[in-house]
């Protein structure tokens, strides 16, 4: 038991560092996708067929292939086409943002789709311009409706950051693997890392849940 405490003390800083790297990828992936998915979701509603099909192809391709294959492809195959080699952290950030944007656009689209048509008609009859009615009425409501799905997606993103370890990005999973190989004590470190991910996941979903309650109008708060 004393050994355990000593090991925890010895490798604690490295694990904490790994956790911070994981969190920074989480922030990059979530902020990037939350922002980029909005123009994408709106673009998917365009009447211009070529643009819509192009955007749809992007969304469906990223949603229907494994993250690992995307990572490998972006890291090893893309440089053969473009001639620009990216480092593992660059590829990792790029892949996370690309794949999360595709998923997030789908969530936004569902959210927008569930705002009733009557809201737009009401806005029109009040003389609001198209842009105003979208910005003030449709999008805020859509965001609130989409929040639970966004929460699920963000937890999935947190879990997905572990895949980056296969490209040797020094996030928590990678650090854990290295320490457990070095100390030959996989049970302790992998269990601990699993607990850390579960706790982080709980924190993320709690945050989204309280945001949801904060944004819900009326007495059902």
């Amino acid at each position, binding site marked *: 038991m004393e050994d355990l405490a000593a090991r925890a003390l010895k490798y604690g800083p490295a694990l904490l560092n790994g956790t911070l790297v994981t969190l920074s990828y989480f922030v990059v992936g979530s902020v990037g996708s939350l922002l980029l998915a909005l123009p994408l979701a709106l673009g998917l509603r365009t009447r211009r067929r070529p643009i819509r099909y192009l955007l749809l192809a992007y969304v*469906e*391709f990223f*949603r*229907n*292939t*494994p*993250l*690992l*294959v*995307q990572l*490998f*492809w972006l890291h*090893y*195959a893309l440089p*053969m*086409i473009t001639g620009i080699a990216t480092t593992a952290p660059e590829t990792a950030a790029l892949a996370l943002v690309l794949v999360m944007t595709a998923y997030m656009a789908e969530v936004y689209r569902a959210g927008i789709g569930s705002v009733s048509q009557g809201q737009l008609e009401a806005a029109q009859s009040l003389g609001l311009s198209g842009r105003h009615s979208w910005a003030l009425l449709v999008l805020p409501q859509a965001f609130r409706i989409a929040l639970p799905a966004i929460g699920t997606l963000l*937890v999935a993103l*947190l*879990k*997905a*950051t*572990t*895949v980056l*370890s*296969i490209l040797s990005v020094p996030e928590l*999973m990678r650090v*854990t*693997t290295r320490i*457990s190989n070095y100390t030959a004590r*996989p*049970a302790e470190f*992998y*269990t601990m*890392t*699993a607990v850390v*991910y*579960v706790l982080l*996941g*709980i924190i993320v979903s709690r945050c989204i849940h309280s945001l949801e309650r904060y944004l819900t109008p009326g007495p059902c708060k």
Partner: protein
Amino acid sequence: MNFDVSLLFGILPELARGLLTTLFVTTIAFTLASLAGLALALCSRSKVGMLQRTTLMIGSVARSIPELVAIFWTYYCLPNVVGLQLSGEVCGALALGAIGAGYMSEIVRGGIMAVPTGDWEAATALALPRWRIWMRIVLPQALSRMRPAILNYFTDVMKNSTLLAGIGVADVAYAAYLSGAQDFRYLEPLTGVAILFFLVVFPLSQLSRRLSAAEAIVTRSL
């Protein structure tokens, strides 16, 4: 750099072997997840508060453990715990199945809860035996409602089976990467495997979307 299709044909045998591994792992993991998920879902409907709370918690913990962590844990720790050496494929399938149980239990629970209470009451009023209520009335309805979610989940398992690369299992994605690494021609094998996954997963997810749209219309007209 040109896309050399003949190179892709050259590595077809390796990819086919990898695909078999992928299918093997996916099938085992999916079956395990379905059985364990069904058991969890039934337990979570138990009237014993303790059992109900425990199974719900097991489910939500299983859903928040990253797949890769579970795979590594099973591969490196499980042999020590149970004292027998398992292959990477089996370990990976066990890990994905265990996590899948968490998702599956939620799908099954949702499906059962979507069966109207009136059906239960009607069946009870007709004095149908309990197992008959389940087999003839509740589960068939629940199953048809669960189909889209189950299909979606199946594609998730398939996509996640690529993570077995982390413990050196040569599934189709890892086989493509390895053959690319041999002569530094990554473009063809990796593009090939991406397209292969897309061709398998995309129709399934479209089918799931169709089914859930059809389901929505049925519920609205009721």
